[in-house]
């Protein structure tokens, strides 16, 4: 399994020319070949959602996608959420509402929530909880994650 293919991953607007085996997952490629370690790996079998990134605007579990499948597509990770020193509303509301404790699942939740709200800014509270149930958090009991995402949703609608 050493045959490698040259691909370009566009992460947060920046091109990374890398060489990967076909089996390389997008999560591993983002972290290791591209050095963007903000995306975390929690299970590698598509259940926990810690590795969620946006590919062409869609939240995907990057442990279940091959790097080659994302070649040439627009990939967004947690490192790309803030604009310089100005945080994304979702990052801010997570801090304001104590939506994180250990912070390991946080990048996945941030990307999931941003991806969903960009597409469905008027999503109902009930549906929001449903969507958030696709990721796991072991610290917060979800109470403050839900509060944070709802607060961000209001801000994102207004802006």
């Amino acid at each position, binding site marked *: *399994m050493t045959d490698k293919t040259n691909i370009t991953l566009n992460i947060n607007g920046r091109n990374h020319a890398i060489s990967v*085996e076909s*089996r*390389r997952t997008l999560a*591993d490629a983002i*972290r*290791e070949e591209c050095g*963007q*370690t*903000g*995306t*975390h*790996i*929690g*299970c*590698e*079998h598509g*259940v*926990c959602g*810690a590795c969620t990134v946006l590919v062409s605007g869609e939240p995907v579990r990057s442990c279940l996608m091959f790097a080659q499948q994302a070649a040439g597509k627009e990939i967004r*990770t*947690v*490192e790309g*959420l*803030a604009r310089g020193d100005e*945080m994304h509303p979702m*990052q801010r509301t*997570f*801090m*304001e509402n*104590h939506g*994180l*404790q*250990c*912070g*390991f*699942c*946080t*990048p996945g939740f*941030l990307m999931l929530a941003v991806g969903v709200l960009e597409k469905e800014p008027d999503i109902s509270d009930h549906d929001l*909880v*449903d969507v*958030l*149930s*696709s*990721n*796991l*958090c*072991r*610290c*917060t*009991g*979800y*109470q*403050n*994650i*839900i509060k944070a995402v709802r607060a961000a949703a209001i801000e994102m609608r207004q802006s």
Partner: protein
Amino acid sequence: MTAHTKGSGTTWVGRSLRRVEDPALVTGQGRFTADLPAVHWVRFVRSSVAAGTIGSITAPDGAGIVTAADLKSLKPIRPMLSKFNYVAVGQPILADGVVRFTGEAIAAVYARGKDEAEDIAELIEVEIAETSPLIDAIDALADGAPLVHAEATGNVIVEGRIVTPGFDEVWKTAHTIIRVDGRSRRQNATPMEARAGHAAFDASTGRVTLTCTTQMPHLTRTAVCDIIGMPESDLRVVAPDVGGGFGQKMSLAPEYVLLVWLARKLRSSVAWTEDRRENLIASFHSRDQHVELEGAFDKGGKLLALRGDIVANVGAYSCFPTTSGVEPLMALAELPGPYDVRAYHCRSRGVLTHTCPMAPYRGVSRPVITFVLERLMDKAAAFFAIEPTELRRRNLIDTFPYTSATGLVFDDGSYKATMEMAIAAIDLRSFRKQQQTARENGRYLGIGFATFSERTGYGTPAFAARGMAISPGFETVHLSIDPSGFVEARIGSSPHGQGLRTSLAQIIADEIGIDPEFIKVVHGDTDRSPYGWGTFASRSLVLSGGASLIAAQKIRAKLVKMAGHMLEAAPEDITLQAGSAHVIGTDRSITIATLVRAAYHQVHIFNGEIEPGMTETGTYDPSGTFSNACHVALVEVDIDTGRVEMKKFLVAEDAGLIINPMIADGQVHGGVAQGIGNALLEEIIYDETGNILSSTLADFLPPTSREIPEIELHHIETLTGNSITKAKGLGEGGAIGAPAAVISAINDALSPFGVSIDEMPATPQRIRAALRSSGKLPSHGRFA
């Protein structure tokens, strides 16, 4: 002495200050162990069987592989207790001739890439002559059962007994005896970050830096150095950002020893990142217990005597440093809970089996014993035909200090008050009406109460009472203000999500009159922090908070003395506020930064009355303090499917003075969610051959946002004399009370069927089995 004036005029303690930890974590700048690059990657080859003897290990030519044969110079992991008939057993770093659980590491493969190491590991052939494994503790106790370790007769590794004088006489006076056979299935703490380690050899100094996902950096250093036989000064242990621990990361991982050994051998850097399957089958498990409990009540519903027999399945080895006594002995000491009962008779055993070793998990035994004890109270209430809360009202302790039948001293608490608060907040009376109406419509609602204590912040005496060769307890803080005027607190605790950097800064800020934004708390690095025990057992806020306060009081005294000298005022007329020392009632002041600069650079002006510099040490080693709470669960059970819907959860909780309400609430939320998961969903399932059937997160089921209902919190703050900050610990309480409340609610919902669910998790299968066996399912029930 003047009245104690808090720092900046307003107190920082008590505010929901935003966490200093967060900006890095929400921007992807957190640094977790698996983020580090390494030259060599390690993959462990693990046993596919639960018990057997290793024949040959065959590796491809040129493969980098380590087996037990290479590690003859290493000592085994051999934690020790001096009491309770503890039998010391050793765990080799890699299985040495014998395998004792599925997932035990047999070999370590290393290669230049992670994938390459995995590829090679797949090619390693291990011949194992399989033997019949012991999976359930009851089977391991049977006469003639094979021995997991030859040293441990009958597979009992630890056995504690308490019998209070005159027990039998009290027992005979009982009006009724109520009995519960409780069973808690095996669980895994499941932090979202699995374990990882990275060991880097520095050729210039000969030192190794081990970065790993530990809750106990100093103990990890001591243990690794003892096992390898190297000076502790040659090993630096770093716990960087750690993605949750819940106890699973406090016990020594044999894998870390291997990494340090290998880094020294290769004179390079080596790394291992556990995958989720490894975490679920081979990290540490917990809560696999049988609890037989009987209560003797008088005719008024007062508990007179308690008799218990506890069997904890501790797996194949004893965890370091707590030993596998941690669950059975915690259960032995704390089984009576917050109830006033003077006669107690209990035996508690830790039993070895061919399963993954047990280690502490948030709550340690108390989630189990609380659930069983609360079942007993509920059953007694049913016998006396009174509300379960009324039975608790007749039995909860309410004079303090209260010394329990097992010798524990309960400091001031609010056991009854939190329960009354919860009853009012949930409106029990109107719930009963709703429940009745719902039942008439074929819907089964239930309410469950759990009243419990949470022993927190205990120092060395409590651990020494267990006879631990290593008795954790004290915490030390080195507090300094450097010439720039910035404050640094170096602590021995090792938080990993608890927000302790923020809470400690609040405590220090109030004492020294410097705002928290100028106070940095440093932890998780044995080169920078004083020897300490880490973060576990709901201890860090109490112990490191107390040590921070003691150190800050010393800094304060020095600053006041210096300010008195420089402002020509009596020290008792000086107050420290918002970064300056002020002479009370005047406009004279001097900045603390100026004072501190003088302590380093103008020390001659103090005529020898001031020691140079601005560093103080605080150490705190208290006896401990009990938090308490009442949890309430509201559920609806679907009798056709056995599904339990959590409708609401309510907590009335008392953890003393709350330092940061936002953080405190977050701790309770998280604990409750884990407790709900424990009660309903999470189970490590072994088949009879010792193979684990729940080795993915699609099988072992931590709850999602859909399973956790709204959690309503209420607080009482009882100020205890047992904690100098007045704060009690609260990290575990959520997980301790929630399973009991949920299971109680399920039983309440199903009371028309006369069933008793005394097992957790209460899965749909178990609920349906109980309902079917009741013979009372409605005949129209399609699935009956």
